[in-house]
């Protein structure tokens, strides 16, 4: 699959996500309309529409807020900004993405933004404190690949939409559970509606997850090509997989954005049920990704990671 094909396929998927989102929204609104009041359903639909449009325009800051990523002055983190700049040049991006920092000890990184020119890369302080330069560069190249492949465009849209669905379903659920207006509806309808409201956010989640986990493999391959160094990418992934730090703010709504799924570990501990269904995994397992790189690059990772000096924060 060439880059152009990948970009085209991402545009198509974006269209599918929009349609799926509209259908799901109609479903939730219909539930509200049936269980409570028809006018409430229409109101919820209008509210979701307006909220969705505003959220899309605000997505840059919204996602940064959800991931707790703070903008930094490029002068302050010069070595890191330079690394991002170099990687973007090697990737052929016209504009270097901004760098944002997430205060967290778990090593991880993400990219977001609707357009490549207005994208940014977020890295945790843990990533800077643990990764040597070569591997940090590999992670940054992975994120820049996402931007170049327009994965961020698709993911940003999906994030916003899933958030809207979750919000509207939540409002509907509360209205039924606490509002006491379900007198009008039969008990059966109320039960169906409640189940629907609980499931709707997960349906939105599924919709988002179904956006091909292959994009992670493609971003890994892209990073290997940008750096001409597949081993660095594999090493970085191995280091991520060996790290035991759990991200503190693990949040299902942004899980798919990160280089390593931040919720897999948390979910297996806190929400046993969810972890069982592999559909909900936002990322292919790291070991599978490492194996793919080893095969493509024709090398084997050493058993022990190089003890290079971390990049530092």
């Amino acid at each position, binding site marked *: *699959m*060439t*880059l*152009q094909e990948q970009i085209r396929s991402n545009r198509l998927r974006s269209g599918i996500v929009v349609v799926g989102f509209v259908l799901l929204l109609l479903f939730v609104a219909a539930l509200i309309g049936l269980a409570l009041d028809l006018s409430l359903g229409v109101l919820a639909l209008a509210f979701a529409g307006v909220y969705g449009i505003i959220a899309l325009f605000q997505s840059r800051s919204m996602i940064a807020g959800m991931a707790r990523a703070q903008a930094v002055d490029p002068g302050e983190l010069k070595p890191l900004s*330079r690394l991002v*700049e*170099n*990687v973007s*040049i*090697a*990737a*052929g991006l*016209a504009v270097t993405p901004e760098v944002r920092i997430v205060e967290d000890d778990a090593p991880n990184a993400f990219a977001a933004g609707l357009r490549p020119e207005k994208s940014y890369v977020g890295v945790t302080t843990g990533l800077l404190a643990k990764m040597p330069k070569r591997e940090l560069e590999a992670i940054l190249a992975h994120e820049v690949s996402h931007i170049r492949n327009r994965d961020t465009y698709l993911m940003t849209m999906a994030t916003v939409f899933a958030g809207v669905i979750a919000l509207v379903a939540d409002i509907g659920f509360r209205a039924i559970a606490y509002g006491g207006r379900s007198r009008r509806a039969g008990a059966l309808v109320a039960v169906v509606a409640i189940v629907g409201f609980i499931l709707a956010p997960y349906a939105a989640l599924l919709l988002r997850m179904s956006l091909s986990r292959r994009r992670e*493999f*493609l971003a890994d*391959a*892209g990073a*290997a*090509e*940008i*750096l*001409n*160094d*597949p081993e660095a990418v594999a090493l970085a992934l191995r280091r991520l997989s060996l790290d035991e730090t759990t991200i503190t703010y693990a949040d299902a709504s942004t899980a798919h954005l990160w280089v390593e799924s931040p919720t897999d570990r948390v979910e297996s501990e806190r929400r046993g049920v969810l972890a069982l269904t592999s559909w909900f995994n936002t990322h292919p397992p790291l070991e599978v990704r490492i194996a793919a*790189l080893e095969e*493509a*690059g024709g090398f084997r990772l050493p058993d022990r990671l190089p003890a290079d000096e971390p990049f530092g924060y």
Partner: protein
Amino acid sequence: MLWLWISIGGVALLGIVFVLGYNRLVRLRNEVDTGWANIDVQLQRRADLIPNLVETVRGYAAHERGVFEEVTRARTALQQAGTPGAAADANEGLTAALGRLFAVAEAYPDLKASENFLQLQDDLTDTEDKISAARRYYNATVMRLNTSVQSFPWLLFARALGFREREFFSAQGDTAVPQVTLSR
């Protein structure tokens, strides 16, 4: 009648294939041009840092004239280089000359401690990293263009349509051209 339709369909299909292929070549050529512009910006930036560096070092080590001349000559050669290959050679030459300049600087502790000198050295390192990043992108785009131009059927009319193979940005005796190509 049937044959007429079949031949019309065949011609139309050929036309579509041709248009798609042509557009692809145009895109690849534009990518190569962008890639070259990226390298050129960084080479220019590197060349722009040299006079300042030479002046700074001269302030501490005025009698090392030979090294200054060598660096200045290498800079001029870089600015005059006409083709990617020549530019890569000249860039290597500048690197070698700068290496000697920095070796000379080693002997002057005051110079090595100078804020200005450290800043210039840092900027130069950054520029070198950026040149090598830009070069990776450029060489990858050249590889894609050349592969297309050399493949059938474009092999037959790429030249007539104005698509030529491009030169890699690599110095003589440089073996860093082969690229890792993964699933793309």
